[in-house]
């Protein structure tokens, strides 16, 4: 691990100032991604700015219109919060499907959204455009069983692996940020970016911008998250799906839905075409499976990853069916 300087910020202003003065700097929340990648030599900040003691970042508020989650709230606390259990079960499901109990106790919501995309070659010492831009992609001709089947480029097919962001996208969440140019809010859909020809850049935040909160609009939609993975904990998804939907009270056909794929694409992947197709259809198994197939229609089978297209189909079908079983 490269040597670095550790600083602790106690206010938002201080955090922003340190970040400007002591670049290249990284904000430190739970450290479960940051330190990991620093030990692997992938991330090499000169300064690490601890934002865990900034009081504004750790609040959780539910109003009529939205749930506002401070970026410093821990995964485990959010999963256990009454507001989440009662009104946003999919958030709880997605959180508990992620990482391990120990990691969830450390990891923050802001850090979670910004966890980096994953690829075994990225974490190793092999050529990787994400780690060393221009060095080539080892996964292209290599073992690609874990690579993205959607949203990749010739430069990179690393997967966005976060469970929470997948669920939050199905809830149409937004992100509040504060930076050198002031505060702004962006749709979660605009936070992550596909690799294109700049695979080293996973997200759209500007240098020095800090996520302060996540806003989730209140909803009465039914919701479910299904994750398929090599083992039932401590494992990223082979494929996952987050679904929110509402059914017509009389005909029980689908009125509105959001379908998001996780662990399959280079960023959280909403499939609007499927949502349109589902409109007005009955929520039966055949429809759910067809929706799954549609969602993965443009997926690339690569060398070893065809099975994940099939698993994606099943994940979508399962999430749709399970969401349908919930009471509104």
């Amino acid at each position, binding site marked *: *691990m*490269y*040597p670095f300087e550790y600083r602790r910020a106690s206010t938002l202003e201080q955090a922003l100032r340190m970040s400007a003065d002591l670049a290249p700097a990284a904000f430190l929340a739970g450290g479960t991604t940051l330190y990991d990648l620093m030990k692997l*030599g992938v991330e090499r900040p000169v300064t690490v700015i601890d934002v865990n003691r900034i009081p504004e970042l750790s609040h959780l508020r539910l109003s009529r219109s939205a749930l506002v989650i401070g970026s410093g709230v821990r995964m485990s606390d959010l999963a256990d919060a009454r507001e989440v259990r009662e009104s946003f079960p999919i958030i709880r*499901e997605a959180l508990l*499907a992620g990482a*391990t109990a120990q990691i969830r106790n450390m990891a923050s919501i802001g850090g979670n959204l910004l966890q980096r995309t994953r690829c*075994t*070659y990225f974490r*190793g*010492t*092999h050529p990787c455009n994400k780690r060393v831009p221009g060095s080539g992609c*080892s996964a292209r*001709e*290599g*073992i690609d069983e874990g690579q993205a089947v959607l949203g990749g480029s010739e430069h990179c097919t690393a997967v966005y692996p976060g469970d929470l962001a997948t669920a939050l996208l199905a809830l149409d969440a937004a992100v509040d940020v504060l930076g050198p140019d002031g505060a702004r809010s962006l749709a979660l859909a605009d936070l992550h970016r596909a690799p294109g020809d700049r695979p080293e850049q996973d997200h759209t935040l500007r240098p020095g911008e800090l996520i302060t909160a996540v806003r989730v609009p209140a909803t009465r939609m039914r919701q*479910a*998250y*299904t*994750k*398929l993975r*090599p*083992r*039932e*904990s*401590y*494992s990223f998804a*082979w494929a996952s799906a987050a679904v929110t939907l509402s059914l017509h009270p009389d005909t*029980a056909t689908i009125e509105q839905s959001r379908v998001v794929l996780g662990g399959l694409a280079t960023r959280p992947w909403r499939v609007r075409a499927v949502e349109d197709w589902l409109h007005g259809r*009955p*929520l*039966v*198994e*055949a429809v*759910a499976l067809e929706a799954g197939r549609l969602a993965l229609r443009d997926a690339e089978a690569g060398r070893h990853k065809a*099975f*994940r297209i*099939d*698993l994606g189909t*099943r*994940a979508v*079908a*399962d*999430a749709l*069916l*399970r969401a*349908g*079983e919930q009471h509104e």
Partner: protein
Amino acid sequence: MSDVLRVDAREKVTGKARYGADRTPEGLLHAAFATATIARGRIVEVDTAESEALAGVVSVTTRFGEDELGPPSFVMGGGYGTQSLQPLRGDRIAHRGQPIALVLAENPVVANHAAELITATYEPEAHASHLDADQAETLLQREAIPIPFADDLTFGDAETDMAAAQTVVDATYEHPAQNATPLELLSAVVQWHEDRLLIHEGTQNAGALRNGLARQLNLDPQQIEVRSRYLGGAFGQRNAQHPYLAPLVLAARRAGRPVKLVLTRQQTFHQASFRPQTRHRITLGADATGRMTAAVHEIDQQTSRHDLFPGGYAKVTSRLYGIPSYRSRQRLVRNDIQTPGYVRAPFEQPGVWAFESAVDELAARVGADPVAFRLANDTSHDPVSGLPFSSRHLGECLRRGAQAFGWEQRPLAPGDWTDDEGNRIGWGVAVGAYPANVTPARARVRVEPDGTVLVETDGHEMGQGLTSAVTSLVTRELGIPAEQVRVRLGDTRVGAQPLTAGSWGTASTLPAVQAALEQLKAGESGAEAGNGLPTALADRAANGLVAAAGPVYGEFAAFSFIAHFVEVRLERVTGRIRVPRVLSVADCGRVANRVTAASQVRGGVVWGLGAALREHLVTDPRLGGFLNASLEEYPISVNADICAIDVDFVDRPDPLLNSSGVKGLGEVAMVGVAPAVTNAIWHATGQRLRKLPITIADLPAGGRRPPSGPSTGGSRPTG
């Protein structure tokens, strides 16, 4: 027998137990390795400049003299090492991850960073990393290692009997390379006191470390003391001297300070032995009455370019049943890897998985119930030696297990059974066996002035509960409470400490302790005894060499046996594979300690489930090495994967093997779990999947619709 709980549990859960790397002697330096980034070739130059310039770095060594660092010797070639390749002694790279430089620094962070800064230029060569690689070289084992131990097993006339068989199954099974992943990283603390050397290392073989170092560094074994009080898991990965140890000792001598090394997890995956990849072709024949008449087991197994790691697959598959004709053919396939080695149930896990899968296929082909088929082919005699088994209660394991599992409810036909929610159900059975070997052991017993009984003995405590088993024995024999018993083992000050492995620990140590206790009871205040093995063996053991007797003894053959029953459920929509329950019934002779014994079996079952459903090392054939070399990516099972595991024992003392009546248990526990799982998956789906691990990716989704029809209601399992 009165059961003593785990005597070291309190030390462990309170953090008092000190493992090898927990030692921090005064003046300690920290070591780290830079490692090769090619899979085969030659080092042209190692650039250490940046590393040496780092504050806190004490030394960087890329090469030791061939005279100061002697050649190592492979434990399976009459030596002491995990392999015969000694890094930092020449310019050859034999596998990715081989050490190319050793850094000593004032703290571990600097040491590791300095190691990362080291780069090298190489002349790479084409390499082989799997059984089918172009550069791989295939050898017939019995010709490559012409000793009886490595020979094929042949009896009867398999070819003729196979030709005459009514029904024949002929299938090929692929078992992946796997890693033992003990939680404790490979590590050591070495310390010179004048010309005496003290090694703290979690090892199953303190004797080999002592003698191996002595040979390599031209020392007298008596100068070297090795202590291995606790191991944080070993499973075969700590069964000999690792290549890091001798360079560490030399570096400590040069620096004049003690040195600690803790390999990273990545390095532990790339420097320690692992379960080699194997391919098994099994041919089985049965006559019209459903009796098996002939079996052929052909094996291809990975080995390294520099060592021949002998496969021993036939030893157990030839003895599972009373099959009159049998032939094995074991081949070794040379790859550019570190030498593979023993991992819990090293040959029995893959070999019996393949064999018991084929047996199940044959049972289905003749239309027999798989339990009845196995019972009908049981035997009381060892078909290899013709001798009776010292004890064999496999039939009882099967009958008792079937009864408790509710086996009679199982539909015979596969692919036909679903629960109310439409999830497929499958039940599978398989058996396992493991040779009952013993190794020489000596024990000293003394009554201290305060009334404490001190037992000093050979053997290593790997978490398997040897200390507890010894304590149990002493409390029972002397009628004193466990608090009055103190056990010292794994320490060359109190014994030669030959290898503890192969499930022979308890069966080897207890008889020695028992014999010493007899003398004590006869009125001595202190006594010493061995376990009665022949002197020639005892001499080998005293010199740190592997010395095991069995499983064929003068008048009998001795094996432990087990039967496993497994239920799988495959979720209807997702295809997710769950194992809601496992029942295992073991015949390990007398149960020395019920608490630790049941725990051994549960651990074996957990590992067997992982071996069947998850674990495999991933190699990119272009690169060599292992891609998933971390706890995060190497998918050992987690709690959430494991449901009910019930354990039962026949618990009848073996009348012939030793005075304590115990046979081994640690390894047999795992044998047969994987085939019980895959047989259950067949029962659920009708599919024979012959490549491990079997994952959700191998199985089509979609059990039956629940009887209630399409779903927008009703309860289904949640994700």
